[in-house]
């Protein structure tokens, strides 16, 4: 429930930036509702094999036959409607239609760190700390109490940069930010710091929304955030946890090898 709330907040934060800077909303919130998520050929196969199974199953006149028939019926339905419940649950789509329209990148990730919410908030609020655990961020320069300049590493030695402002700052609880107009990457996000149960420390919940622009730069930025941006955010949060809990980030880079 709360995740949806923060997703809306992130989108609204971008919309507030004014008409000349309309964010390109992701048209398909992928994997939800009754959308088409099964591709053309797969739908044909589903219809064909589903019909065959249904007929064969019914002709068996037994409990096993009935089970087969119901599987067949399910496949037939899936092929006919182009919607697969399992794919939907797994957030998979083999249909071109939805993936082409999805331009925004939305990520929600969390991690538990064995430090108090106060300690984790303090570390994060000092934005110049962020490049220590965000692998693709080169520098974050603090410009004022609420604004900062971000430089990210891009493939082939390129860089992308943007200015950001903090729009919500609730000490020890929550920070929200968004990029300022004319950014290479429009983005907005929220990080919440919740007390974890017992002596488990702090739950860090991050919600991020990116809208890479079209064209060459957009392609570069898409690469920058990889095939699966959620994995990069997971890795960044893991580095944050390790840095705060152990004072270092474990590595094997530079060790001997035969």
């Amino acid at each position: 429930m709360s995740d949806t709330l923060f997703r809306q907040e992130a989108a609204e934060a971008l919309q507030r930036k004014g008409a000349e800077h309309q964010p390109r909303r992701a048209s398909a919130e992928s994997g939800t509702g009754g959308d088409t998520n099964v591709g053309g050929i797969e739908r044909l196969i589903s219809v064909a094999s589903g019909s065959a199974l249904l007929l064969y199953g019914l002709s068996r006149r037994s409990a096993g036959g009935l089970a087969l028939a119901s599987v067949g019926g399910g496949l037939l339905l899936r092929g006919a409607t182009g919607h697969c419940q399992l794919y939907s649950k797994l957030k998979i789509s083999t249909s071109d239609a939805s993936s082409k329209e999805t331009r925004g990148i939305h990520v929600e990730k969390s991690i538990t760190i064995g430090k108090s919410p106060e300690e984790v908030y303090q570390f994060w609020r000092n934005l110049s700390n962020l490049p220590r655990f965000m692998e693709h961020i080169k520098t974050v320069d603090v410009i004022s109490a609420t604004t900062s300049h971000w430089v990210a590493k891009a493939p082939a030695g390129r860089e992308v940069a943007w200015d950001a402002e903090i729009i919500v700052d609730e000490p020890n609880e929550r920070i929200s930010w968004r990029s300022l107009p004319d950014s290479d990457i429009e983005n907005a996000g929220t990080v919440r710091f919740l007390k974890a149960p017992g002596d488990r420390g702090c739950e860090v919940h991050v919600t991020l929304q990116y809208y890479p622009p079209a064209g060459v730069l957009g392609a570069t930025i898409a690469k920058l955030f990889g095939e699966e941006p959620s994995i990069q955010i997971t890795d960044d949060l893991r580095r944050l946890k390790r840095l705060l809990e152990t004072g270092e980030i474990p590595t094997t880079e530079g060790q001997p090898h035969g």
Partner: protein
Amino acid sequence: MKALCWHGRNDVRIDNVPDPTILNPRDAIIKVTATAICGSDLHLYNAFIPTLMEGDILGHEFMGEVVELGSEVKNLQKGDRVVVPFTIACGQCFFCKKTMWSLCDNSNPNAGMAEKMYGFTPSGLFGYSHLLGGYAGGQAEYVRVPFADVGPYKVPEGLRDDQVLFLTDIFPTGYQAAENCDIQPGDTVAVWGCGPVGLFTIASAYMLGAERVIAIDRFPERLQMAQKFGAEVIDYEQVDVGSTLKEMTGGRGPDSCIDAVGMEAHGMTLDNLYDKGMQMARIGTDRPHVLRQAIMSCRKGGTVSLPGVYGGLLNMLPIGAAHAKSLTFKMGQTHVHRYLPKLMESIEKGKIDPSAIITHRVPLTEAPEAYAMFKNKTDGCVKVVMTP
């Protein structure tokens, strides 16, 4: 330096590689004075553990002298003689604080890979595949030890390397396997596998108060060694293990069953041939013949403890029998740090001499031959200790 590197199935070589250096503030460099080949190294040698790469330095049982320290290691000094737990632990995460050291959240640099396979990552290990950290191992002249302020344990004066070397893995592993059985007075414990871990499991079961220990293997020299540790023995090539255990325990079955064999069990039965076929076809990854037998043999309400390593997926596990008999399962890598002080003391007091299991001592340069000998169990090989 010289190091034992993996080059493929049944192919390990001594290579010349660069010396390790301090990479993080809590690192130390150890000059290795003794290192051993572990039974679980054979899973790597046989290429049954995924994500090993050509050139990886193997070895997770090693000890030596501290020669270099990172800026944050305050509890060690150059020249200290230490044994190093094979599980790498940060000492500060939720799991380390609860002494579940082998579940450390922070020591596996490739945690993402392990999460894909296991849901969550266990701790990093020395020389045991990239899935479990990709750390260079200790079958080498020098080794880098991360979180050196937590792992390495100083060896008291007067103890030889070969007496304390096995505190790095197999002695604590056997001890944890027995401790996991919550042994009560009068208990009979059955142990499958009389390799080094099995032998230390037998010794530990008695240390923890077992009435009887019954050990199962097929190699005469291993069965003899098990007898020396006080166990009654069963040769599984001569008799049916399940019915023999039942008869030996007055029809009750052993109170606890310990699988000190793991994923590459050998056996004489149909299910074992099936597993072997599946494993060779890379359809199933593990051959759980021993585990099946342990589940079937265990008395109702008993414990099945698994110090033996499993890596992937099992076929045909009799989960119905386990459920019907209300069995308890205990497993996992060893929380070495938890047991080190207690077991070091038992050696110091002369209660046990771990060096009794050593059958071969060779220089590190002969490691490739030693691996082949240990794998094929030729020349009565039970445990090989190497010196760089």
